[in-house]
């Protein structure tokens, strides 16, 4: 929860930099709806339960959710932040540890 909340706190900065903010995970539309309402998110949270976008970006973390039981595979996205401009990747941050997330200031610097 804290990651999306942290992004929300800086949402106006991203807007000021002329960028749209979009989040993606394997979570269902229903789960995302609950999170969006609970945290009060102003940016879209997309649902990728079949890991289509996650695979297209090469970010599949097999069995990243150790608590999943069949039929859910437990495969999830590794945390990653991409800055995209003109349809291509301009900058990216792939953390080494999922505890340690990108500094929003680094993302804003990449947008300038």
């Amino acid at each position, binding site marked *: *929860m804290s*990651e999306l909340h*942290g992004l929300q706190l800086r949402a106006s900065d991203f807007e000021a*930099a*002329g*960028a*749209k*903010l*979009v*989040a*993606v*995970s*394997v*979570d269902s*539309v229903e*789960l*995302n*709806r609950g*999170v*969006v309402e609970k945290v009060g998110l102003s940016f*879209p*949270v*997309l*649902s990728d339960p079949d890991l*289509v*976008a996650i695979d*297209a*970006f*090469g*970010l599949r*973390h*097999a069995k*990243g*959710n150790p608590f999943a039981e069949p039929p859910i595979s437990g495969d*999830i*996205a*590794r*945390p*990653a*932040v*991409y*800055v*995209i*401009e*003109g*349809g*291509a*990747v*301009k*900058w990216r941050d*792939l*953390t*080494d*540890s*999922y*505890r*340690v*997330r990108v500094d929003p200031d680094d*993302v804003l610097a990449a*947008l300038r």
Partner: protein
Amino acid sequence: MLPVMVWLGPILAFVGVASYFALFLNWPITRDVPWVNLILLALALAASIAGLMRSRRRVLAAAGLALTLAFSGFFLWYTYVVSYDLPSAELALDVGAQVPAVVLRDARGQDVELAALSREKLVLVFFRGHW
């Protein structure tokens, strides 16, 4: 009576682990380097060792120390081993690559085209999810 240190150690160690997940994970300054929790665990270890040295109830004091070590070990294992267990970054889309044409649904159930969003400046955040 059981010296304070004997039971204080494991309790402090438990707090040292639990408070990371319940609290300190929320702020980058206490999350990235978990210094508050490492200090709590160091104090717990000191208390347990002091308890073992002072108490005449050796078995209980040793059990307390073992519990403190177990909590501390779990925390170090999680923060410095488990959380680093991620797939290779070499597989991930790199700078300069085109954004693939993918359609996903937003929280209202509406289709969103990733490639269409990507024409302008976009910050795309992949997160682990809440499951």
